[in-house]
């Protein structure tokens, strides 16, 4: 039994097939990448897997249980967390508070205790704070803890999102372009972090445009084009697949024609 199994997932937006009949599976500690030209449906696929979009067809199995169409906060309880391509940071909150929010499932409790600042409420918050501080240190943001998140650089916010997602102690982690907009050093750091997390047994599903990174760290690659899976396999096989080369060259030609 695979940890995460995607069976024929598809969705339409106003008659347009954004994703159609995509299937693959992943196991503990595996890094699987989804690649494809812009508009291939990668983020849409992510949104279905993480419960943001309700799939039009197909099934999503997490640890052998059908979780198709389950709300994101319920999927989070089952160990699935994610980051976003276009950052979704709580801008007005401090960096530390952003990270603590990742511990919501652990720190939540009686609202009454929270309103009255009872010891139980303080203990919950304190435990979450300690965890968050450790996580921030791990992604290199310990010194920025008390800053307002909105003031951070793009690369730092990317790492903050990863920290927040890791706070859930996920079994499956979805990373949507974690290295986009990052410089070479930052990319390498994120690269190392992903490998480290996977080594701890977390299954990581990655969307990434940095092909060097994808080829280097992925165990398995799924290629999408026009919403459909056109190839999958290990990095070496996929990079030599004619359909994949055509899809990529095709878009490059189209981009040249546009410019």
């Amino acid at each position, binding site marked *: 039994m695979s940890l995460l199994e995607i069976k024929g997932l598809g969705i339409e937006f106003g008659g347009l097939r954004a994703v159609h009949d995509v299937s693959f599976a992943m196991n503990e500690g595996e890094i699987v990448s989804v690649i494809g030209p812009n508009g291939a449906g990668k983020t849409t696929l992510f949104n279905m897997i993480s419960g943001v979009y309700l799939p039009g067809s197909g099934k999503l199995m997490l640890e052998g249980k059908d979780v198709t169409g389950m709300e994101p906060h319920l999927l*989070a309880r089952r160990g699935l967390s994610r980051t976003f391509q276009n950052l979704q940071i709580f801008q007005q909150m401090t960096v530390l*508070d952003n990270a603590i929010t990742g511990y919501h499932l652990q720190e939540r409790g009686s609202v009454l205790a*929270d309103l009255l600042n009872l010891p139980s409420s303080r203990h919950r*918050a304190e435990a979450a704070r300690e965890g968050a501080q450790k996580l921030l240190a791990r992604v290199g943001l310990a010194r920025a803890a008390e800053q307002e998140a909105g003031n951070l650089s793009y690369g730092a916010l990317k790492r903050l999102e990863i920290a927040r997602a890791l*706070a859930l102690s996920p079994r499956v982690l979805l990373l949507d372009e974690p290295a986009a907009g990052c410089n070479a050093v930052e990319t390498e750091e994120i690269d190392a972090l992903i490998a480290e997390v996977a080594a701890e047994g977390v299954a990581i599903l990655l969307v990434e445009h940095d092909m060097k990174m994808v080829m280097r760290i992925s165990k398995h690659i799924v290629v999408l084009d026009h919403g459909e899976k056109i190839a999958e396999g290990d990095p070496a096989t996929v990079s030599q697949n004619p359909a994949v080369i055509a899809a990529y060259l095709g878009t490059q030609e189209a981009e040249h024609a546009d410019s």
Partner: protein
Amino acid sequence: MKLSNKQTALVVLAALIAITPLFFPSSYYFRVGSLIFVNSIAVIGIVILAGYAGQISLGHAGFAGIGAYACALAPVHLGLHPAFAVVLGAIISAVMAYVVGRPILRLKGYYLGVATLGFGILVSMVLANEREITGGPDGIQVPDLGLRAIVKTMGLDLNNSEFWYIFSGLALILGAWVALNLYDSPTGRALRALHGSEIAARTVGIDVARLKLQAFIISAVYASISGSLLALQNKFITPDVAGFMHSIEMVTMAVLGGVGSVLGAIFGAAILTMLPQLLTVFAEYEMLLMGLVMMLVMIFMRDGLLPSILRRIRGKDE
């Protein structure tokens, strides 16, 4: 020992409430003061709903109406002591907030505004039309809380304004304490998170629908208690307490003072409660000037008066 933000805010608030009476030229100002406190309590509720959770309500006066009329009606019809009528009003408001909030909190932005607006209008219409019970648009008497008499037997003889200044001042400190507790608590953090990004909040496991509902209920209880205290100190209440203007007033006070901060909201309530009294010298231009002040604040101090002023002071320090 260094005070936390919360402790500083509470000390400042308590000090202001305790010290300002020393400068009151007449006992009329005790009356203005207690009105400010009662308004502030409702506005803190708006801060929790709008400032923390990012949800708008244009009908919260409806809950103030429930709280106020509970104090007028429960002692007469149910034989409840007015103090328990306050509690009953809060419970009814909480239940109403749950029933009303469940369907409408799924709406966002303008749509939520209009839906809450509808709720407020509904309550004020019921209060105005059920003459036989509520006395209709002319209003209704509210029994005495009786606490002043008890305080008197303990050797402290206060007039009505003085008593209500102290009593609603204490209620305000309590309300501010609870709201500040919430801000830094796990629930408060989750509320601020869903304000920042609903989708990110959901992916970290926050049950957004449930949390919005909790914020709505808490803020309804604040409005209800505010309405109760208003009714008890005036000893008379009309359906205006639940009216549209009162709802708008609450939101305006919160936004003007700084919707993200409890102290800011109290500041906003103080300004908007006092401004009409100060502007009476301009007679017919009063409303015009008030509108102008509000517009200027929103143009130049978009975060609200208090946060903007504080930032300017801190900016100079650096």
